[in-house]
């Protein structure tokens, strides 16, 4: 790599880091329950080396906070990376989201390196990197303290190492490719299915390219980290039953095969990929697709090129694209980009292939074409970003459980360092997890012992008690009004949403 290219890459990485970390505390507008739980466990790990259940440096993290069917087990990569950040940063929203930003930046750098190497075309590398960096789905998921984006760097690393191996036939490089898949196995729950699938695809490519003899290096690289999983499973045999129960995989309510075919097909719908990105407002603004509009032309072009040339890496990437929605289909989830984020890197790579192929028509226009694609992408992203930091926050507030932390922070502030009984409305979902997070962040875990839940507003609480009330519930709102009118309580603070509506109130006895 030349020095100017390296400098440009570093500049790009810096720009992406700045873009991705801008207003990390309040965009997404609030923390999701998953983020809170991950933050709590990572904080415990950073502070004590143990998870919330007291296990020392666990491989997987048992989560009981959600009180759902079965036990949830969270993957280790996000926990340890977040814990590493919390070693040097306080427990805040931006701190627990920073690891995702780091992952996002790494993805962009790897994408450039991979596309440039694979296509032997620096312009295609820049196009790929920009398309990934400005992809609405990639941008949004690089700002969550959740692990959906975590498999991507391992996938890109695997592809990069494999592309080097296919050029140079160095077995140790193949082992590194396997290693990337092996470590990626621990990045997100879908990786448990997808990483082995990618390994099988690797073996098929090796066979096709006459390198079948080197398969043991790929497997050894993969098996090394995954052996930890095997050992762990042997000690936790109930985890499969827990996971099946958690996702209701054996339930009679699950959809049939035909409906699954339909769901799978819709993951490749132009509407989903290029226009609205899915229906869940946590993971999509609904006014931008998963990928940028430039891919509407480049992606089909890339697919046609792959089908015609049938080069190994191209076929592998196409297989990756086709496999990406499978975990979501297993879970009966349609339009859930968070479960099918593999669509993003594979989609971008195919777009880069398409770009590179189209440029062979008029090679002299390559730089101009790249500049046009990038400019168009920047323009589209600017529109998306304006909405993301603006009206999207208002539209999505309810999906992020409303401003619970605002109410809890008001309570902590009101205690002014002292000890006061605290009552939390039990109709607020996951309020106990949010409370623990707030207390840990404010170093006021002493208040935990004084905290109670309630379902009906009780006027017999001790004087000085602070209550958080969910006034989006009409019955609670009416009870609160009556309590305030009776002068048994007085209003401490109204907690508002971005659109000005009041969702919670903090009242004092």
């Amino acid at each position: 790599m030349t020095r100017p290219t390296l400098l440009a890459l570093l500049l790009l990485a810096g720009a992406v880091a700045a873009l991705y970390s801008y207003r990390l505390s309040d965009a997404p507008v609030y923390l999701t329950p998953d983020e809170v739980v991950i933050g709590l466990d990572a904080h415990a790990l950073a502070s004590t080396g143990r998870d919330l259940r007291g296990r020392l440096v666990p491989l997987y993290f048992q989560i009981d906070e959600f009180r759902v069917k079965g036990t949830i087990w969270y993957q280790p990569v996000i926990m340890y990376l977040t814990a590493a950040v919390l070693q040097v940063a306080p427990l805040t929203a931006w701190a627990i989201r920073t690891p995702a930003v780091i992952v996002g930046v790494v993805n962009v750098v790897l994408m450039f390196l991979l596309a440039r190497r694979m296509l032997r075309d620096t312009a295609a590398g820049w196009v790929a990197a920009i398309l990934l960096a400005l992809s609405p789905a990639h941008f949004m998921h690089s700002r969550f303290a959740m692990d959906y984006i975590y498999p991507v760097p391992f996938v890109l690393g695997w592809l990069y190492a494999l592309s080097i191996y296919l050029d140079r036939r160095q077995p140790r490089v193949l082992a590194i490719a396997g290693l990337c898949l092996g470590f990626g196995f621990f990045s997100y729950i879908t990786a448990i299915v997808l990483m082995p699938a990618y390994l099988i695809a690797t073996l098929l490519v090796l066979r096709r390219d006459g390198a079948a003899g080197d398969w043991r290096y790929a497997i050894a690289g993969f098996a090394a980290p995954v052996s930890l999983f095997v050992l762990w499973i042997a000690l936790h045999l109930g985890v499969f039953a827990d996971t099946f129960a958690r996702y209701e995989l054996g339930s009679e309510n699950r959809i049939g095969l035909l409906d699954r075919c339909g769901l799978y097909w819709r993951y490749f719908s132009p509407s989903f990929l290029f226009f609205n990105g899915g229906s869940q407002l946590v993971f999509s603004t609904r006014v931008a697709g998963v990928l940028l509009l430039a891919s509407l032309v480049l992606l089909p072009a890339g697919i046609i090129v792959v089908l015609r040339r049938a080069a190994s890496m191209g076929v592998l990437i196409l297989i990756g694209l086709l496999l990406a929605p499978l975990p979501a289909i297993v879970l009966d989830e349609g339009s859930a980009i968070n479960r099918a984020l593999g669509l993003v890197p594979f989609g971008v790579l195919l777009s880069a292939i398409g770009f590179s192929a189209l440029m062979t028509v008029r090679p002299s226009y390559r730089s101009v074409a790249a500049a046009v694609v990038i400019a168009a992408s920047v323009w589209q992203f600017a529109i998306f970003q304006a909405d993301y930091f603006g009206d999207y926050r208002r539209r999505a507030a309810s999906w992020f459980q409303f401003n619970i932390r605002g109410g809890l922070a008001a309570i902590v502030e009101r205690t002014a360092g002292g000890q006061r009984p605290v009552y939390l409305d039990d109709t607020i979902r996951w309020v106990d997890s949010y409370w623990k997070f707030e207390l840990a962040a404010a170093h006021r875990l002493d208040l935990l012992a004084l905290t109670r839940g309630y379902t009906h507003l009780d006027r017999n609480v001790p004087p000085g008690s602070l209550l958080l009330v969910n006034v989006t519930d009409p019955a609670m709102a009416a009870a609160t009004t009556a309590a305030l009118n009776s002068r048994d309580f007085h209003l401490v603070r109204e907690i508002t949403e971005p659109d000005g509506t009041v969702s919670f109130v903090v009242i004092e006895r």
Partner: protein
Amino acid sequence: MFKAQRIWLGAAVAVLAAVVYGIALDRSPIYLTHDEVIYARNAYSIAATGRDLSGQFLPISIPVTGTFYATPANIYLTAAFLKVLPLSETAVRLPSVLVGLLCVWLVYLIARRLLNSERFGAAAAALLLLTPAHFIHSRLGTDHLYVVACVLAWLLLLVTDDPGTNAKRLFIATAFLGLSLYTYIGALITAPICVALTVLWLALGRSRHDWGLYVVAIAGFVVPALPFVAWHVTHPGQYANQIRMYALYDSRMLNAAEGARELIAPTSVAERAAVYWDYFNPSFLFFAGDTGLLNGTRYTGVFLLPMMVLVPAGIAALLFMKGRARILVLALFAVAPAAAVVVAERYRINRALMLLPVAAVIAAAGAQWMWQRRGRVWRWAVIVLIAAMPLQFAAFYRDYFGDYRVRSYAWFEYNMRDAMEEIIRRAGAGSPVWISQSLQWADYYWPFYLDRFGRPELSRQTHYIDAERHDLAVIGPGSLVLCRAGEERRFLDAGFTRVAAIEEPDRTHSLSVLQR
């Protein structure tokens, strides 16, 4: 095979196809849909008097109900049949059988030319013949299939000409597109797209710089379209009514330009992109089919299962082929759901019937490609896939004439036929007939069956009644009433007697004939 043998074989196959497609038209679909009744009544009127039901003489566009206007082609063809046949379910549906078989023959010719093979041309025809959705729509007395015949004629003329371009044939080809405007309202979308494809066709050909050919192509479309355009100029409200009917935009508030802007707004584009994609959903195409029981049985897809392999193989084969004909076929396949996309209706195969013949041609290309590959396994795969089709079709056919009738009767407005026949049989010269307004479309079915059974004079004795609001006491003795089974209690309490309980195939009592 000698030519004479081929001709005899072709004739035998044609007869067999006609029997398979044309048998028991009065049995399945179980009853006439309201659309069939409406078209048939207009056809019967035109056959008898030259005027439609509204009194227009040989109209170009036929007002049907409210804001809906019907295109004339199937009505005139049905009228031609009714000139020689008595009014019946069979006579009403026979024209569609003819059009369906015509499409099969056109597909044979197109595939034979495209693939340069008699054998695979026949395969394409067989694949279309065995397509459940094509079979179903060849037995419905509606207009959806007519535009397909016109577009196939256009395609045949272009493909036959390839690699050259004959101006006369080009004119005739696009003239078929102009004529298609009179066949089905969706042609308003399909025909201009096909004209655009014709321009693409010319641009890819040897004569791409001969501008005269482009003029010829457009003229061929415009000339037959002129009366259609003239009609709309003289009936300006019809366009707005049609827009409202399909809820494209509020034509009362927005003019055409504003409406077009609304259609291309981002949310509209996103929604329509999703609809478009869903028309290629394998679940829809190969497993479940149309969501409505009018256009599908729900037990098979639009196509039979082997097409799930043959169509993708065909697409791959055409991508590797040379020549502009393959581009035209693939492009036509891609734009086939356009009309359905504009009205944003998902999984309604009647709006995208062009998919069927084009898929058959593509599948035949796939079969040929597989057959020509090295390795016996490919040929065995083709044999197994093609052999499986009649087997699956047989199961579909059995269900179509069996349980499908039971599942679908509600979609076909219930057993109006037997109910009305019962009343007609009982009604004397002066017997008043009262028909409940809860029976939607009864005001179309009743006159149809009066003509069908030769009692048109009973229309003068007929009244339509809102059973909830009308004072039933004023209905005189001897009156006959037709109502839903669920509302007969009111009549029984008012002193009527049930004289016939009209049942469906599953013995459900759906309609009642009562008498005072």
